[in-house]
């Protein structure tokens, strides 16, 4: 049962915020208006980008979704309950592990086998030979979260291009970009149709760049359509359609 109890949708604006303190209450409770005391912008975020993203893929049957962030049960459940087959691939972690392994290999190489160290571009190319290796047009939807803020420069255009290849025509990609350097490192999970929970998981330091809107559009220029939303919390959402 919808806990909003048939109230008008406009009367339920604060639902996600209010619910945080109620937990999984099943009783009908009138929505609590947003006030300074209960508004938690660092935790629950109302997302226009997510709302559009979900709308775009709402007609897809037996869809496939790729989540490039850290695995989250809430996000998994959200899409599986809507009939999607979900693939999770924590790309940032894979990249870091790959790069560490490459560096370790270079350090440990015996002098006789020592070759010129690989350039960052070559390392990126090697990485993508084993990562994001999905069939073309395989996914109807891709959640990128904020990994483009945290990926090394040599990977950016390659990953964006690879994303284009693996997304089905008409499919959508949702990405987040910080408009100012974040104070922490975050992970993201979907709470409901238009709410994303932003969970701090560590200190800042993994954030590498601030994208200008034009740079974002250039990066995803192969996509048929691009749209960005800027939030008051300095988080820009990008929605790209193939």
């Amino acid at each position, binding site marked *: 049962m919808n806990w909003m109890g048939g109230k008008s949708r406009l009367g339920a604006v604060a639902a996600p915020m209010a619910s945080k303190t109620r937990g999984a209450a099943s009783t009908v409770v009138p929505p609590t208006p947003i006030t300074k005391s209960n508004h938690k912008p660092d935790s629950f975020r109302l997302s226009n980008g997510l709302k*559009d993203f979900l709308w775009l893929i709402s007609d897809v049957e037996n869809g496939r979704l790729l989540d490039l962030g850290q695995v989250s049960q*809430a996000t998994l*459940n959200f899409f599986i309950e809507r009939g999607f087959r979900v693939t999770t691939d924590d790309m940032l972690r894979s990249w870091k592990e790959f790069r560490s392994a490459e560096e370790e290999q270079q350090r440990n190489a015996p002098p006789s086998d020592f070759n010129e160290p690989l350039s960052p571009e070559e390392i990126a190319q090697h990485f993508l030979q084993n990562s994001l290796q999905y069939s073309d047009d395989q996914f109807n939807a891709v959640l990128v979260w904020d990994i483009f803020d945290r990926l090394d420069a040599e990977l950016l255009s390659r990953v964006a291009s690879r994303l284009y290849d693996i997304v089905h025509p008409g499919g959508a990609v949702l990405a987040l970009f910080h408009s100012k350097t974040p104070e922490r490192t975050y992970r993201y999970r979907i709470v409901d149709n238009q709410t994303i929970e932003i969970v701090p998981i560590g200190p800042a330091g993994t954030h590498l760049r601030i994208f200008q809107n034009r740079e974002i559009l250039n990066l995803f220029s192969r996509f*048929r359509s691009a749209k960005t939303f800027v939030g008051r919390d300095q988080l820009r959402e990008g929605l790209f359609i193939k």
Partner: protein
Amino acid sequence: MWRKQPEGKPSPSATPAAPSAFAPPSYTPPAEKSTGASPSPSKPAAAIPPAPVPSPEAAILTQGIRIRGELTGKADLFIDGDVEGSIRLGDSRLTVGPSGHVKADIEAREIYIRGDVQGNLRGRERITLGNSCHVKGDLESPRIAIEDGAQFKGRVEMGPAADARERQIKRTAPAITPSVTPSSTDSTPTSVPIEASAKK
């Protein structure tokens, strides 16, 4: 460029994401904080079971034990060592402890992972990925629980589809007999019966 949005669909305008500007069409309150799961009546989200403690009857592969080959059986199994090959435990429970390293496809009634696993996991009733696990492979089970901090790369199939497929497999599959098949080319130690390794 953008489809015209019918009433009730989100506005296409790139307006600031001000919280008060939204009206959620529906809202399912989030479940308990630890899992972030949003349970539904049809597919109850798997609650995170308590940390794995091997039951007295469970066979235990302790740290330092290495097995290469096919592990099958009807007893619960706790792996804290290294296993490479395949593991099929039918109606039993498999737990991979924090020191466990498994490179194998796994089939069991319940699977709880806290160590490193590379391989596809099929849980007849439930799969749980603990917060210290590192799993690379596909998951298939009616219920899947993932703790915060779990590292996972792969595909997930959960709910009725996985459940129905599991029932079909159960109807057609022959009964599993307890045995350990040594790998014929294996020069490393050891293919030991589960019972034997439990005494270590």
